[in-house]
Structure formats: C-alpha cells, structure tokens
C-alpha cells in the first residue's frame, strides 16, 4: 500500500539573490530549514540511530566521477546478517565465492528516478557480459523500504529488469547496519513534512570473494563502464 505523497507548502524563492532584507531573511530561514532537514534525513539527530560504525566509514569524497573507484584491500569481518532472498534462499554477505563478484545496491521500488535507472543500467551491463563473466556475477538489491517492498512487489519490480537479480527484504535496522558497513549511509524511512521519505544508496558496492568490498561505482555509471570493469576484475581473478 503506497503511502500518500503530500506536497509541502510552497516555499519562498529558492536561491534568491536579491539583496532586499525580506528575501534575505526568507532565504536564510529556508537554508536553515533545509540544512536541518537533510541532517535529519541523514540520521544525525542527537538521539540517534546513527550507529558508531558510521564514523569509520571511508570518506569517498564529495563528487566522485562516474565509473569504478577501487578501495584499499579490506580486511576484517563482513556483516554477519543472514537474509532470505525473494526466492526463499538464504543469503549471506560472505557467500560471494572465489572468482566471483556481487554488485550490491540498496534502494527501494517506489522510486521513479535513480533506483530503476540504476537497475536498468546494471541489467544492460550484465546482459552484455560473456557467458563466463555473467555466470560469475550476481546483482543483489536490498530494499531500504521493507514496509512497501513486499516479496511480491520485489519479484514484480526486479523482474522487469532482469530475472536473475536477487531481491532481499529484511528488517530495516539490519539493512541499515549492513549498508553502513559498506559505506552507504541509508537510514530508515521517515515522514518529513507529511512526506514519506526513503533513502537509497548513491553507489553500487562491488563485493569480492567472502564479501570483502573491492570498490564501488557511482550510480548513473554507464552500462558499458559497469561491464568493462566487471570483466576486468573477473579477469584479474579477484
């Protein structure tokens, strides 16, 4: 059941540059409200929900270019959570086998822009791989909106991109914790100014054998770039 999209009341001119005092004031109030709003969406409320692990998240910097960004070799444990896929199978982060890759995306289905575009790009990329590469590459989508993303919805939605994509619906706190491990700061859905707002990752994480992260792609990477990098990583035997 979709929650209502309630428009927020009209706001004063965004980005007004007039020096008139009333506009300056309106702009300042708006800027303050927006900064508080995004901070809220980022889960940095004092009470928080921002788990300590976020402090250790690698800082990927402001505006990474499209394409693949490799990370330093990741040692240590991967998340221990055990999930059930929409097909009813058990899936764990360490299930990535030797010489295989998993492309991992945290998103939600009631999303008209980044989430379906990312999945469409990944579907085009995976579809262009050789059979050998394709059998060694998995795409996993973990929902950041388990309330609306039922198993039935996941199957329907993912199936329109690629029937081999693995969909996972899990309790939101486990979703958030595991995402944070891979440096993706999604937070639980919340209602803001009457709108039900959900977060999604701005990256596709690349997991190598054992679930250790090899790197990531910024979303909106071109499908041929996804494919070329996946092929390259597989060829290197990562």
């Amino acid at each position, binding site marked *: 059941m979709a929650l209502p999209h309630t428009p927020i009341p009209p*706001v004063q001119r965004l980005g007004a540059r007039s020096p008139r005092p009333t506009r300056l004031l309106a702009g300042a109030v708006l800027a303050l409200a927006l900064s508080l709003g995004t901070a809220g969406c980022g889960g940095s409320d004092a009470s928080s929900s921002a788990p300590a692990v976020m402090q250790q998240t690698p800082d990927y910097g402001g505006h990474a270019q499209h394409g693949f960004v490799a990370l330093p070799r990741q040692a240590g444990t991967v998340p221990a959570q055990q999930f059930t896929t929409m097909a009813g199978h058990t899936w764990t982060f360490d299930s990535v086998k030797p010489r295989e890759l998993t492309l991992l995306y945290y998103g939600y289905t009631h999303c008209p822009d*980044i989430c379906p575009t990312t999945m469409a790009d990944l579907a085009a990329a995976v579809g262009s791989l050789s059979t050998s590469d394709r059998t060694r590459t998995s795409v996993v989508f973990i929902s950041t909106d388990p309330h609306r993303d039922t198993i039935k919805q996941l199957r329907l939605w993912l199936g329109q991109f690629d029937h081999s994509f693995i969909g996972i619906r899990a309790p939101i706190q486990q979703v958030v914790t595991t995402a944070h491990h891979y440096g993706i700061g999604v937070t639980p859905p919340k209602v803001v100014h009457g709108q039900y707002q959900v977060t999604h990752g701005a990256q596709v994480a690349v997991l190598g054998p054992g679930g250790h992260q090899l790197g990531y792609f910024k979303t909106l990477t071109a499908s041929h770039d996804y494919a070329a990098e996946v092929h390259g990583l597989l060829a290197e035997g990562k």
Partner: protein
Amino acid sequence: MRSSGPGQGRPPDVRLSRAVVALVAGIAFAPGLAGCAGSSQHAGGHPAPSASASAPAAVSAEAGTIHIDTAYAATSVRSDDGSMTAVYMSLTNSAGTQVSLVSATSSLATSVELHNTVDTGNNAETMTAVARIPVPARGAVKLTPGGYHIMAMGLAHPLHVGDRMPLTLRFSDHHTIHLDLPVRSRVDSGQGDDMGDMKGMKGMPGMVLVVR
C-alpha cells in the same frame, strides 16, 4: 570523377553542382530546425516515426521566457500499485527575473509531482517533493536523473520506448504549455548532455501547443 594528377582541380561545373546540392540540402533541413524551436506553432499531424528505438527526438518548446529542451519521459516502472515514471528536460530562462515551474499534470497519470534528489550524506540520497523548480534569471536548470525530476504516478498504462506521454507544465508567470513527450530508454540516461539529438535534423519533435 577520379582524382587526377597535380595541377588539375575539379571542373567548375562539378564544383557548382555540388554547391547546389549542399544549398538545397540546407534549405530542405532548415524548416526542421525552425520547427524544433517553434513556440506557438501547432505542429499538426504525427511526427516522423523514429526508425529505431535508440534515439527518438526529444521535445523542445517555449513558454513565455522559458525555453524547454530535450524533454522526454523515461520508460515506466511497474509496481504492485501501478506504474510510474520520471520526466526530464532542461529549462532556460531568458527573463531578468526568476521563473519557476510550479506544476505538471498529465492525462495519463493520476498524480504528478515535482521532485528533487537530495544528498543525505555518506553516499546516500533521498527524493523529496518540492513545490517549485526555480529557473534562475538568465539562467538554466536541468531536470536529470539524480537531480530534479517530474514524477508521474498512477499511469493509465505502461510507457515503452516509442510511446508518447502528454504533459502540461505551468509556470509561476502563468504561462502554460502542453507537451507531447517521447518515451526514451532509461539505460545510460544519466550520461550527461543529450543535446546532440536537437542539434541534428531528426525530424519533427511532436505536437506542441501553447496556451496562455
């Protein structure tokens, strides 16, 4: 005429005929360009069908001081409660004062909202409905994947590449424009400037009506 040895250019009549061909070609294509930029024209009939699904022409139009370019709808996405899609375009404002896009409606959608993608920090984002998309004075704003976009929900039917989607835009200066958008593939739609389609001579962009 095969190329000849040094000292021999092409005969004058060949050069002239090639120039005439080039001139005629230029004249033949010019109305297409004018049509692309036309504002209060009713481009009657149907646009020339795209030969392939790869790059149907996007829409460009004028609404008052706002120039709309490369407007298109992405292919729709099915959910258990209906289909939705996103619409993208670039908006350029030639006026000395800001003008905002304040609403969008479509006969194909039960609801249409203006949205922005907001960085929530730590490599995550959220989408938020906004009341307006401002186009700065003598400036531009692009509705693109990952940025501002128009979200259309409750579509009457799925939208595939090659379909059309009607969309009415209303601006803060009370100009309204009806667009007939082409539906384009989502794949690689985040790859920067798609202005190439409009610089070429790809035929009529579709019916455009201006209503004041």
